[in-house]
C-alpha cells in the first residue's frame, strides 16, 4: 500500500505531465506516418530520456507506445494505409467512413475507443500485476532460465515465417550479448578480438538503432517521393462524434477492450490479432452486420479498442516475468533496463513505487491522449503528408546523435551502421529482427541463471525438469514450438490436397 501511495505522489508532478504529453505527441505523429511506427519512435527517443529519472523517462516512452497505437488509425482512416500494422483492421470501416464524408467522426470514434480501452487495460494491469509478481517471487535460477527460454520460444514462433530461421535469429542476438567481459568471472573477455572498445560489449541502444532504425531507413530509400503529398480526406469540424453515437458503440468498445486486454496479456499475440478478433466479434454481435465494411462506426470502435487494449496488458508479463509480448515491449524492456529497472519478479520488491507510478501513469497517458486527439486532430490529420525526403535525413541525424550520446564514442557509430547493413541483408534472407533483439535482452538472464542452476545441481541439467514451475515453462515453450510445426504440417497437407484436386480436375 505504501508503494501505491508513494507511486501516486511521485506521478503527479508537472515534469511527468510534460513528458507524458511529449511522448503521446511524438507517438501519434510516428504512428500516423505509414512506415515509421512505434518501434522506430521508441528507439529514436530513448537516448533523449537518458538525463531523466526513471518515472518520467518510462512514462514518455509509454506515451509514445499508446499514442502510436492510436496514431496508426489516422492514416488508416484518411489515406487507406495503416500507420502501424495494429491499425490494419481499422481501415476496413475507417476509410469508407471518410469516403462518405465522416472522416472527423471516424477519427473521433477511434480516439474515444482507444482511450477507453487503454484505461481499462491500465486498470487491469494495476490489479493483476502485483498479484502475479507475488507468485513469481518464489522463482529460483532454474525457473528464471526456463522463463527466458519460454520468452524466446514465444517470440521465435510468432515473429518468424520459418521456425529454424527464428531460432537462428534468436541465437544471433544471444551471441551478440555474449560479446564483452564474462559477467560471472568479470575478467574473461569473450569475442572482443583484442579490441578494448568491445570489452564492455555492444550497447543495447546502439544495437536497437542499428537493427530497427538504420534498416528502416535503408528500406525507405526505395520509395519514390517526388510525386508530392498523398491525397486524403479533409476534416469537417461540424461532423464530430455525438454522445449518442458514442453511447451506441460503448458495448462494443468495452467488449473489445476486454478481449484486447486478454489477448495482450498472453506473450506473443499482439495488437494485430486483438484488432481483427475484436472486429470479427463486433460484426458477429451486430444487429446490422451487413453495414460492416461500409463505414460503420462499430467497425472502427472494435479494432481500435482491441488494439489499444493490449497497451496495458502487454506490460503484465513484461513487468512480472520480464517477458516481452511483442517487438515494441521487447524494446521497452531494453529501455527499462537502461533506466535501471530490471523487469521480472524482483521489480515490484526493488522499485515498487516507480512501477506503481508508471502503471497509474498509463491512465494519465490515455487521458492526455484524448485531450491531444481532440484539440490537435486537424494538425494530426496533416502529418500523413510529411514526405520521406524530409523524414529520412532527420531520422539519420537523430540516430547518429542518439548513438553517439550513449558513450561519446565514434566506434559506436560504426557499430550502428554495420549492424544496420547486416540486419538489412538478414531481412532480405527472410530472417526476422525481433528475435535478435529478444536474444540480446534475454541472454544475460538465461546465461546467469543457467550457470547458477548447474552449480546448484552440481552440473546436472535435470534440475530444469525436476522443479515444477521450471518444467511448466519448458513444456509451454516446447508446446508453442510444437504447435507451429503441427500448423505447418497441416498447411502443407492442405496445399498438397488442393494440388491433387486441381490436378484431377485438369
Amino acid at each position, binding site marked *: 500500500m505504501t508503494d501505491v501511495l508513494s507511486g501516486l505522489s511521485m506521478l503527479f508532478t508537472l515534469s511527468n505531465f510534460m513528458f507524458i504529453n511529449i511522448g503521446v505527441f511524438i507517438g501519434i505523429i510516428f504512428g500516423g506516418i505509414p512506415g515509421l511506427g512505434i518501434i522506430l519512435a521508441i528507439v529514436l527517443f530513448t537516448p533523449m530520456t537518458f538525463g531523466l529519472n526513471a518515472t518520467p523517462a518510462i512514462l514518455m516512452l509509454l506515451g509514445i507506445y499508446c499514442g502510436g497505437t492510436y496514431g496508426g488509425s489516422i492514416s488508416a482512416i484518411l489515406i487507406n494505409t495503416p500507420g502501424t500494422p495494429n491499425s490494419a483492421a481499422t481501415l476496413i470501416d475507417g476509410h469508407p467512413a471518410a469516403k462518405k464524408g465522416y472522416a472527423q467522426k471516424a477519427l473521433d470514434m477511434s480516439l474515444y475507443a482507444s482511450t477507453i480501452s487503454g484505461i481499462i487495460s491500465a486498470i487491469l494491469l494495476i490489479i493483476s500485476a502485483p498479484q502475479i509478481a507475488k507468485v513469481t517471487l518464489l522463482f529460483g535460477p532454474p525457473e528464471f532460465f526456463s522463463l527466458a527460454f519460454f520468452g524466446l520460444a514465444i517470440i521465435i514462433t510468432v515473429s518468424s515465417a520459418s521456425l529454424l530461421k527464428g531460432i537462428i535469429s534468436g541465437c544471433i542476438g544471444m*551471441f551478440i550479448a555474449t560479446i564483452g567481459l564474462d559477467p560471472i568471472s568479470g575478467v574473461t573477455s*569473450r569475442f572482443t578480438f583484442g579490441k578494448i572498445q568491445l570489452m564492455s560489449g555492444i550497447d543495447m541502444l546502439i544495437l536497437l538503432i542499428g537493427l530497427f532504425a538504420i534498416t528502416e*531507413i535503408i528500406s525507405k*530509400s526505395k520509395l519514390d*517521393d517526388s510525386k508530392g503529398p498523398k491525397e486524403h480526406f479533409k476534416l469537417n469540424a461540424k461532423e464530430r462524434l455525438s454522445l449518442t453515437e458514442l453511447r451506441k458503440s460503448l458495448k462494443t468498445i468495452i467488449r473489445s477492450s476486454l478481449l484486447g486486454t486478454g489477448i495482450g496479456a498472453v506473450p506473443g499475440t499482439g495488437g494485430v490479432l486483438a484488432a481483427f478478433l475484436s472486429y470479427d466479434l463486433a460484426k458477429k454481435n451486430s444487429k446490422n452486420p451487413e453495414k460492416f465494411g461500409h463505414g460503420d462506426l462499430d467497425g472502427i470502435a472494435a479494432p481500435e479498442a482491441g488494439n489499444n487494449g493490449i497497451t496495458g496488458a502487454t506490460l503484465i508479463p513484461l513487468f512480472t516475468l520480464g517477458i516481452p509480448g511483442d517487438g515494441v515491449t521487447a524494446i521497452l524492456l531494453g529501455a527499462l533496463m537502461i533506466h535501471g529497472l530490471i523487469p521480472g519478479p524482483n521489480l515490484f520488491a526493488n522499485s515498487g513505487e516507480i512501477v506503481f507510478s508508471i502503471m497509474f501513469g498509463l491512465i494519465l497517458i490515455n487521458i492526455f491522449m484524448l485531450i491531444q486527439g481532440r484539440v490537435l486532430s486537424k494538425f494530426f490529420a496533416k502529418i500523413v503528408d510529411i514526405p520521406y525526403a524530409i523524414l529520412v535525413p532527420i531520422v539519420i541525424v537523430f540516430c547518429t546523435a542518439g548513438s553517439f550520446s550513449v558513450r561519446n564514442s565514434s566506434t559506436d557509430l560504426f557499430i550502428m551502421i554495420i549492424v544496420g547493413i547486416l540486419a538489412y541483408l538478414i531481412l532480405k534472407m527472410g530472417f526476422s529482427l525481433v528475435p535478435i533483439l529478444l536474444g540480446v535482452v534475454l541472454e544475460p538472464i538465461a546465461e546467469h541463471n543457467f550457470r547458477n542452476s548447474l552449480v546448484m545441481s552440481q552440473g546436472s541439467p535435470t534440475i530444469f525438469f525436476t522443479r515444477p514451475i521450471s518444467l511448466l515453462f519448458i513444456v509451454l515453450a516446447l508446446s508453442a514450438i510444437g504447435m507451429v510445426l503441427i500448423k505447418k504440417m497441416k498447411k502443407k497437407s492442405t496445399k498438397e490436397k488442393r494440388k491433387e484436386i486441381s490436378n484431377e480436375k485438369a
Partner: protein
Amino acid sequence: MIKIEKQNGIRIDNNLFSGVLFSIISLTLWFLVPAQIKIRNTTQINAQTFPKIIIGIVFISSALLIVTSILNREKKYFYINKRFIENELRPFIMATIILIYVFSIQKIGFIISSFLLCVVIVRFFNIKNKNYYLITCGSSLIISFVFIKLLNVLLP
C-alpha cells in the same frame, strides 16, 4: 544452391543459401572459441559453455535448414539479375551515404556533416523544392542544439 539461368539471371535457393552461410559462420565461431574465450579455471561450467551452446544451436538449425530445403519441393528463390540490381541499388547508395556521413562526422564535425547529409538525401529523393532543404537542415540544427545544450552531449 546457385544456378545460372539465361532468362532470369543467377538463381539462389534462399533457405539453402542461408543454411550454408550460417553453418559456415557457426563452425568458424566454434573453432574461434578457445582463442577468443581464454578460461583460467577448468570447471565444467565456465565462460565458454553458454557461447558454445548458442553456436551449437545455430549450427544444428542451419544443418536442418539445409536438409529441409533439399527435401522440400516448394523452394524459395531469389534472382540476381538486372531487376534485382535496380531494386537494390538505392538501398546500397543509401547505406553508402550513411557510412560516408559517419566518417565525415570525425573529419568536419557533426553539424556541417548533417547539413551535407540533408542536402544529399533530399537530392537523392529527386526533390528540387528549396523548402525541403531548409526544413531538413533546420531540423538537424535543432537536433544538434537539443543534444549539445539540453542533454550535454559532446557531439564531434
